[in-house]
């Protein structure tokens, strides 16, 4: 990987003083990646692309949106009706958020399956969890902005969670609202924060990439790069592979935007916010539903601690537990491919998350209450009991000697290429 020599005099002049082109060349062109990355490794760059799409469409939407309780709903409808291609911007933004969460969830599950959070990538993982942690409130704030029924009532329910904090709860929630109710001050600051947070996410995404490029990507075998035979330059190999992945994602995204733009939106958000009428069923966007299910799973007080507080703590803990995963999982083997037991528990965990999502989407009554509680209990059991125990007692399969040996046809060990 020699430092490139720049022929263009302008680039040469700049690069001599600020080696930004050399830096980009090193990180995006020469950057050595394992040669066996599957399409599961495309979701990180897809999420990044969607983040950029969201920021750009968001800036254009903000140019036409009015954060005022009397005008917000109508201003969104003006965007839909009177702004040139305003409907396209809005549908790209709204569904882009869903696509972003699809991508980061696949990205996280890939990390869980292939053990990408393990040494030396613990910080990389933690920065990723931080991105998830900030992306969720960002999306929620955006959901509030159109000021439809679901916007208003979701804002009321979610901000009221702050009242669960002992002693200062009520003061805290009023400080959040800027008022004694969810009102104009609330909408104004939600707009400001919704505009601010994505730039924090962009900053974290930069750190995420930086940390990634130190030790390069993990790979489906979960073994380290042993030498040049295991590596290929990012460009053209992974630019081409990610390019195809991007094409497939864009097809799905555009089919939703152009033909089913409201498929993922609750119909009640086309009714203007009305503080006097509570919708029969208040739901967040689909991507928050598993966490909503954890929140509502706690229906019982424990000693003097009220159920609501435990619910809020459980919801926060369901994400916080991810921060500790690199130390909860003691297994030296990264990839589930060589961990026969972990592999099965991984899929049970995926199923558990889907069950939580379904429970979150349904009213907390009847059978959904015990199912939600069982699924919540299992969620934490997975991380706090199953993963630590497997790490110690599971007998992993033999690891291949090198990536190259394992994936190249006739590479020596006779293992199946993957």
């Amino acid at each position: 990987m020699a430092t490139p020599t720049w022929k263009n005099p302008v680039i040469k002049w700049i690069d001599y003083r600020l080696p930004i082109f050399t830096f980009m060349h090193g990180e995006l062109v020469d950057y050595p990646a394992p040669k066996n990355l599957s399409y599961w490794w495309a979701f990180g760059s897809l999420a990044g692309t969607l983040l950029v799409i969201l920021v750009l469409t968001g800036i254009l939407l903000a140019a036409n949106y009015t954060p005022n309780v009397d005008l917000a709903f109508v201003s969104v409808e003006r965007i839909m009706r009177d702004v040139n291609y305003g409907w396209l911007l809005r549908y790209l933004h709204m569904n882009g958020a869903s696509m972003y969460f699809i991508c980061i969830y696949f990205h996280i599950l890939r990390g869980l399956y292939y053990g990408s959070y393990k040494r030396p990538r613990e910080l990389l993982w933690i920065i990723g969890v931080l991105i998830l942690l900030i992306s969720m409130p960002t999306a929620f704030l955006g959901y509030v902005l159109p000021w439809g029924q679901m916007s208003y009532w979701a804002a009321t329910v979610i901000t009221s969670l702050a009242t669960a904090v002992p002693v200062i709860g009520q003061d805290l929630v009023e400080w959040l609202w800027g008022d004694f109710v969810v009102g104009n001050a609330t909408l104004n600051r939600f707009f400001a924060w919704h505009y601010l947070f994505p730039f924090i996410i962009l900053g974290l995404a930069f750190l995420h990439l930086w940390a990634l490029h130190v030790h390069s990507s993990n790979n489906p075998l979960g073994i380290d790069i042993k030498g040049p035979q295991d590596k290929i330059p990012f460009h053209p190999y992974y630019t081409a592979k990610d390019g195809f992945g991007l094409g497939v994602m864009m097809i799905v995204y555009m089919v939703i935007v152009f033909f089913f733009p409201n498929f993922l939106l609750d119909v009640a958000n086309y009714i203007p916010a009305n503080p006097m009428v509570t919708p029969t069923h208040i739901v967040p966007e689909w991507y928050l539903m598993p966490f909503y299910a954890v929140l509502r799973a706690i229906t019982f007080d424990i000693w003097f601690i009220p159920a609501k507080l435990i619910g809020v703590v459980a919801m926060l803990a369901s994400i916080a537990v991810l921060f500790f995963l690199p130390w909860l999982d003691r297994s030296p083997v990264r990839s589930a491919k060589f961990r026969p037991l972990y592999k099965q528990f991984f899929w049970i965990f995926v199923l558990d998350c889907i069950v939580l999502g379904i429970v979150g989407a349904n009213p907390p009554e009847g059978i959904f209450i015990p199912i939600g509680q069982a699924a919540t209990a299992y969620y934490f059991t997975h991380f706090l009991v199953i993963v630590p125990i497997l790490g110690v007692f599971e007998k992993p399969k033999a690891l291949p000697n090198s990536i190259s040996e394992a994936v190249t046809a006739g590479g020596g060990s006779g293992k199946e290429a993957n």
Partner: protein
Amino acid sequence: MPRFVMSTLVALALSAGVAVAAEATEPPAQDWSFDGIFETFDRGALKRGFQIYSEVCSTCHSLRLVAYRNLRDIGFSEPEVKAIAADVEVLDGPNEEGETHGEDGMPFMRPGLPSDRFASPFANEQAARASNSGALPPDLSLMIKAREHGPDYVYAFLTGYQDEVPEGVELADGRFYNRYFPGNQTSMGPMLGDEAVEYADGTKPTLEQHARDIVTFLSWTAEPEMEERKSLGIKVVLFLVVLTAMLYAVKRKIWSDLH
């Protein structure tokens, strides 16, 4: 807000199952001219639907998000739109002296312009409720997008009135029985029946035809961008399919020396 009100509200919201009303019948799926990704609004139905809105619905329901100029998009000519707009009176003033009311004590009014949004039947919510025995007729601009099953629901609702109230159901005063309405008791009477309006184009004025036409019109008011959206979408998706196929070929070519 007092603390106990807040906590009650949160408790209610968290338990979410707030007094779910009597079960409404699932509306049967209908065939709509604008269903498929290649399909557009039936122009005849749009115009007939506009006629029904003007002659029937607009007595109680506003259409605040739609402007008269938008009617150009469904086939009305410019002079027609001007005439339709000029038919309504909209609030005017203040004049140059700062007066808002004439000597007769009435507010200044002027004829509508194509740039005006549809005039609402009532000046405010209170006036609307006062004229409708306490019920508030909702704005119809987004009605189709604001209900589960959208057009199918509104069609079923408009054709779902029943004179015979099922046994054991106590109909409240001023309510009408409708099996598709959540709770089955609606404050809106059966406004559409056979021959509710007389069609200029000679279409047979049945209840079903009326319902079909008004639903088509309201689907347009809810999604005026639908036709442009679908036609652009087909081009975008076709482009992406070709591009992605080529990207796949490029990927195969580039990776071929590794395998």
